[in-house]
């Protein structure tokens, strides 16, 4: 029965060929497409620090509260700064009086004859008046600064956002310049997709990006930029001005991950974003047709 035998051989080989072709397309689909499972939702987090030091008398927000730009976050005890303003006002008044005296003196001497008052004394009087004017200016600047400090005892939100991980309470002492409240900017959501370096040639700025959160929600966006530098973990820092190269095992090397920044379109209604969420990122060229894969073999 040779005819039957030929049919069975051809049929088996056909099924085998189909299997090979399917495995190859699966491989190409998986390896030569710009996608990653390692995506992170991120946001700009502002570390709000008071501009003046002092006791915290009031924390006007609670944890996870939504705030608008300019809303009061916390109030620092203004007593010291109020006293400083009064002191500066007093100094301005004193310097004003001193200036009036010096100017009167200078004017009086300027009118006098050279036989009555020496030229030196007359010139000195003029210079002393100028000095008094400068002193007054200094005192006014100090007053402005004291008023600014008093105003800065009220710490306000620099952007719209969410107060996060609030760990500051009335009675704490706040240092100047030391972060007191973390504020997540509500207009700054973006996604970092950590792409293997082998996939980078498939990505261009402006490409469309489709994201899927771990909880299932879909987001869309576009590629905003590709990081042009990551840390070299095999040469962390040089010691004694020589390179400190890690002796790696050369047989297997792992592809590095390069962050690709994705600008998010406004998320659909009801999607709750939080900095740090995991998502899958799939990137497609704007035209829809796949980009040519670089020759690797």
């Amino acid at each position, binding site marked *: 029965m040779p005819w*039957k*035998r030929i049919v*069975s*051989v051809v*049929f*088996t*080989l056909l*099924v*085998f060929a*189909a*299997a090979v072709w*399917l*495995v190859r*397309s*699966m491989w190409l*689909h998986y390896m030569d497409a710009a*996608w990653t*499972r390692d995506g992170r939702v991120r946001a700009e987090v502002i570390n709000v620090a008071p501009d003046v030091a002092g006791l915290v008398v009031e924390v006007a927000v609670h944890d996870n509260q939504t705030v608008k730009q300019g809303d009061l976050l916390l109030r620092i005890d203004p007593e010291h700064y109020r006293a400083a303003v009064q002191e500066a006002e007093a100094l301005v008044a004193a310097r004003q009086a001193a200036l009036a005296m010096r100017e009167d003196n200078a004017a009086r001497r300027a009118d006098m004859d050279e036989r009555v008052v020496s030229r030196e004394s007359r010139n000195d009087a003029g210079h002393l008046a100028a000095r008094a004017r400068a002193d007054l200016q200094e005192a006014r600047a100090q007053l402005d600064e004291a008023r600014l400090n008093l105003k800065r005892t009220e710490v306000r939100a620099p952007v719209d956002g969410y107060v996060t991980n609030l760990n500051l309470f009335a009675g704490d002492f706040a240092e100047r310049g030391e972060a007191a409240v973390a504020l997540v900017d509500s207009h700054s959501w973006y996604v970092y997709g950590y792409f293997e370096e082998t996939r980078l040639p498939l990505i261009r700025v402006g490409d469309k990006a489709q994201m*899927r959160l*771990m*909880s*299932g929600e879909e987001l869309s966006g576009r590629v905003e930029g590709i990081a042009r530098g990551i840390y070299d973990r095999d040469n962390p820092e040089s010691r004694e001005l020589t390179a400190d190269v890690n002796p790696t095992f050369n047989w297997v090397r792992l592809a590095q991950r390069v962050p690709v920044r994705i600008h998010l379109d406004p998320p659909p209604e009801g999607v709750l974003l939080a900095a740090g969420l*995991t998502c*899958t990122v*799939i990137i497609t060229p704007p035209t829809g047709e796949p980009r040519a894969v670089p020759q690797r073999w």
Partner: protein
Amino acid sequence: MPREIALFGVYLPNLTLLFLLTLAGGWVIDRLVAWCGLYRHAWHPTLLRVSLFTCLYGALVLYVYH
């Protein structure tokens, strides 16, 4: 169709789930074909069975990923 599924807080590729699904479905089809006695006419029954399983898995994966 998503590319992965969150199972008990672990992010799993759908490929693994599809493989389990194909394992079950493929076994049923394999038993059916064997029951019909078609393998007796095959050239190398083992090669045919492996190829059939691979085809089933590949077709399912490509369908899901598109």
